[in-house]
């Protein structure tokens, strides 16, 4: 067991003080002299041709400085991949969902801007619209994108092994269909951007983005400005969860309006705009056919997935692909056929959201596994143990499992929820129950990508600059959107150099100065940026050791850096303080500037969208969650009493941060299972505010949450790290669904599991 000086300690976040004093600036907090305020005009139609836009009345309103529409952006289109550029900054030609951005106004204050938006006259020719993906795929359905027949945004089909034979040889086969609803990222900080377009042709923006470099590229393309003249400066980000990765109308419009007015422009959305029109999680329908042997060991799967893509593509291909790839983990699957479709509908665009497709498919697979267990009279824990993958496993589609603590996580979670005792209780005769509360426990496994390998730019870099007083600057391109990555990177630096975390000054992204980085998504910061920082820190250390070696007349390779000292192991007289060494290097010889640098990217091929083979990340996290629920049969309300997370995260760099991530993951999982849904009727959101879009409060969370870290020391992770903030959302949902079944005998095949649904189900069964 390594005795670290800094890592594995409970350390408060490096940015905690600026946040708790209100000093830290989020995008909306930043103001510039002469700043104007922007507001977006949105489509009232789910599908319509734009016949004309008349801005004349609006332009006459005193205080209005400029108005733009889609044509102001010429033929510019963008998207997450080169072949899926189906988004434009503002609608052109037609609108494809209620809330799609049609025009933008900038004015001296928000009141004038809002008034002006109301004065813009748009003439539409409404078109038939389609809201359900299965309907959208039917012949004759309204065509949303002309170049995508059948409204298919992405399709993906794979076939490994021999499923016909495997099903024929199976002892037990069943087929189930599951539905997982659209819900929102739910960040409390709305989207916001401040833009300044310099007449000399330089763009400067302060946006709330998880992945500032995507915006930097998009702005460069949209405005035909070289990348070196696009400066994206990252403020503090108030949560992203996948919803602040892309570039949206407000970003392009703020820059364009600044260009047209010669003044800085701020655009901040309100929650109604976000809830009704911004990006959201893909709704999912999964039909799974499973064949198992007498022992419940999986023989084959036949899977059909349909994702509701909304009106554009975004990062959709990855979401669909992940519903495929995460059928192969965390259980051994010898034969599988997969058919997946991501379908356009006339609704806001679906994108990545914490768990990105993996949450949806594992929910279906884990609940079904419990159904199999029940049918075969096998303990749900036992069936999972029998099927669990082990370290070194290679899946039928050639995914390679390095470290894997899945079996350990099953045991630990089960023990923490007291599984063996509870499960020994006699099967409840639900028909005879006439009390009020029913209790149950449920368990579910998960696997997740740790550092998703995406196409295009994939590696992270870091630079560490030594100051003469022994403090350092860590300059990197990754983004902390609240998950605590900044702190982990500072801890890695401090550990390697043997200094304190507070002596590491961590930069935030400024695309003019920081290294290009893919961004904060796909659970990649600790593993990918972490490795880059580790290499940079070692580079810095090596350079300093060289000089220390000369000063102390010692072999540099034998020097240790710890507790602010640089010393020869076992010979305390041969030492120099890090601070003193930092002073001396500047005058050593001709004077040295110590700058350490490092780069790292996963040494695997990008996700293969054609064959379905290969790794999606350099490593995979694994885990198990167990839930104890209480069902109130009088009101239908479900209370999560206890939640246990046992997660194989490779190495726990900061227990305080990791626990926070586990607890937050559970929070979002509970929201998904029980509370949240974008309720829509004919493309219109009927719960457009936090009053009706229910975000769980203090009172809805389990009083007991146990977080168990399983350290398997992943070889490809910095200090053995893997992700611990996204995979931990994946099995919250099925653990709760399985617990509800254990309590009531009822299987729920769709979410959220509202009190109304519970009461209806109880009634149907003849009680309550």
């Amino acid at each position, binding site marked *: 067991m390594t005795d670290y000086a800094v890592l594995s300690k409970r350390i408060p976040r490096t940015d905690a003080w600026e946040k708790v004093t209100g000093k830290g600036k989020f995008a909306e907090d930043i103001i510039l002299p002469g700043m104007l305020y922007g507001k977006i005009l949105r489509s009232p139609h789910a599908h319509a041709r734009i016949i004309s836009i008349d801005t004349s009345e609006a332009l006459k309103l005193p205080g209005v400085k400029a108005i733009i529409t889609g044509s102001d952006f010429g033929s510019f289109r963008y998207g997450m991949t080169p072949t899926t550029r189906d988004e434009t900054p503002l609608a052109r030609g037609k609108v494809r969902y209620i809330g799609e951005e049609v025009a933008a106004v900038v004015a001296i204050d928000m009141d004038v801007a809002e008034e002006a938006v109301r004065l813009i006259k748009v003439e539409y020719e409404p078109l038939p619209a389609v809201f359900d993906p299965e309907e959208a795929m039917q012949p004759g359905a309204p065509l949303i994108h002309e170049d995508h027949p059948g409204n298919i945004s992405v399709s993906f089909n794979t076939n490994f092994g021999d499923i016909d034979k495997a099903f024929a040889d199976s002892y037990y086969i069943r087929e189930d269909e599951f539905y997982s609803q659209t819900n929102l990222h739910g960040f409390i900080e709305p989207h916001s951007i401040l833009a300044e377009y310099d007449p000399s042709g330089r763009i400067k923006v302060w946006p709330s983005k998880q992945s500032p470099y995507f915006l930097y590229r998009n702005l460069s393309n949209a405005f035909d400005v070289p990348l070196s003249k696009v400066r994206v400066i990252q403020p503090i980000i108030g949560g992203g969860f996948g919803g602040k990765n892309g570039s949206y109308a407000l970003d392009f419009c703020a820059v364009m309006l600044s260009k047209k007015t010669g003044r800085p422009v701020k655009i901040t959305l309100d929650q109604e705009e976000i809830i009704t029109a911004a990006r959201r999680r893909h709704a999912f329908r999964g039909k799974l056919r499973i064949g198992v042997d007498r022992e419940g060991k999986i023989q084959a799967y036949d899977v059909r997935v349909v994702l509701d893509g909304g009106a554009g593509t975004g990062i959709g291909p990855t979401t669909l692909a992940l519903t495929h790839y995460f059928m192969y983990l965390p259980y051994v699957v010898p034969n599988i056929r997969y058919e997946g479709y991501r379908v356009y509908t006339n609704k806001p665009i679906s994108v990545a959201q914490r768990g990105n497709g993996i949450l949806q498919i594992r929910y279906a697979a884990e609940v079904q596994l419990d159904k199999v267990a029940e049918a075969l009279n096998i303990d749900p824990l036992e069936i999972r143990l029998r099927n669990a993958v082990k370290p070194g496993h290679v899946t039928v589609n050639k995914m390679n499992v390095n470290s894997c603590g899945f079996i350990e996580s099953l045991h630990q979670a089960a023990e923490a929820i007291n599984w063996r005792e509870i499960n020994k209780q006699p099967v409840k005769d639900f028909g005879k129950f006439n009390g009020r509360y029913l209790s149950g426990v449920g368990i579910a496994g998960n696997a997740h990508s740790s550092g998703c390998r995406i196409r295009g730019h994939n590696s992270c870099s870091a630079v560490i600059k030594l100051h003469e007083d022994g403090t350092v600057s860590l300059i990197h391109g990754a983004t902390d959107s609240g998950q605590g990555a900044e702190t982990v990177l500072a801890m890695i630096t401090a550990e390697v150099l043997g200094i304190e975390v507070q002596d590491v000054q961590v930069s935030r992204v400024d695309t003019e100065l920081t290294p290009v980085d893919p961004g904060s998504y796909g659970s990649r910061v600790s593993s990918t940026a972490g490795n880059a920082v580790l290499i940079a820190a070692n580079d810095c250390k090596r350079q300093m050791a060289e000089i220390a070696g000369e000063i102390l007349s010692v072999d540099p390779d034998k020097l240790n850096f710890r507790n602010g000292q640089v010393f020869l192991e076992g010979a305390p007289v041969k030492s120099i303080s890090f601070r003193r060494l930092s002073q001396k290097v500047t005058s050593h010889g001709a004077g040295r500037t110590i700058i350490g640098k490092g780069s790292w990217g996963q040494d695997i091929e990008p996700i293969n969208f054609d064959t379905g083979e290969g790794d999606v990340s350099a490593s995979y996290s694994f885990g198990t969650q167990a839930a104890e629920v209480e069902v109130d049969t009088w009101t239908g309300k479900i209370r999560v009493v206890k939640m246990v997370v046992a997660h194989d995260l490779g190495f726990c760099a900061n227990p305080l941060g990791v626990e*926070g991530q586990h607890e937050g993951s559970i929070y979002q999982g509970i929201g998904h299972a029980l509370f949240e849904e974008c309720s829509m009727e004919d493309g219109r959101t009927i719960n457009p*505010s936090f009053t009706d879009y229910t975000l769980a409060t203090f009172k809805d969370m389990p009083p007991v949450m146990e977080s168990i870290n399983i350290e398997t020391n992943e070889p490809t992770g910095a200090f053995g790290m893997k992700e611990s903030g996204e995979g931990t959302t994946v099995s919250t949902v099925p653990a709760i669904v399985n617990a509800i079944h254990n309590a009531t005998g009822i299987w729920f095949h769709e979410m959220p599991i509202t009190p109304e649904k519970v009461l209806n189900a109880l009634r149907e069964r003849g009680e309550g």
Partner: protein
Amino acid sequence: MKQAIVLNINGQDYEVLIESNWSLLKVIREVVGFTGTKKGCDQGECGACTVLMDDQAVLSCITLAVDAQGTRIVTIEGLGEEDKPDEVQTAFVEEGAIQCGFCTPGMVLATKALLKRNSNPTEEEIRDGLAGNLCRCTGYHKIVAAVKTAAGSLTK
């Protein structure tokens, strides 16, 4: 037509020129310039705009600035600095109760108000007392721990 009013914020009087329909939140952030108080939903649903008004937690986004005259307003900036922090701030930092930080100012001030009226709340009282403040990141667990720790420090 704008009117001049005086607001007492963080112990200081500010004379501001405002419209009668402006919220206290708008005046705090945009006129006086204290951006620590956050605009989350602007509809009184999320609690990010919480400030103290005569030691009570109020939602500044649904409070009219004109109605705040004659009261003592405290925003997060008036609570403490890193070198001289309030016990609640210290507890939040040390217990890991902060992630993205957007709900934090409102949460800290709501905690101050809670501890003022109940210096030793039970877990249930904490969850009840803070239920008007939403957080998307933490799952509330460490916030509850921070409130308990702060209650302990304050009663010392």
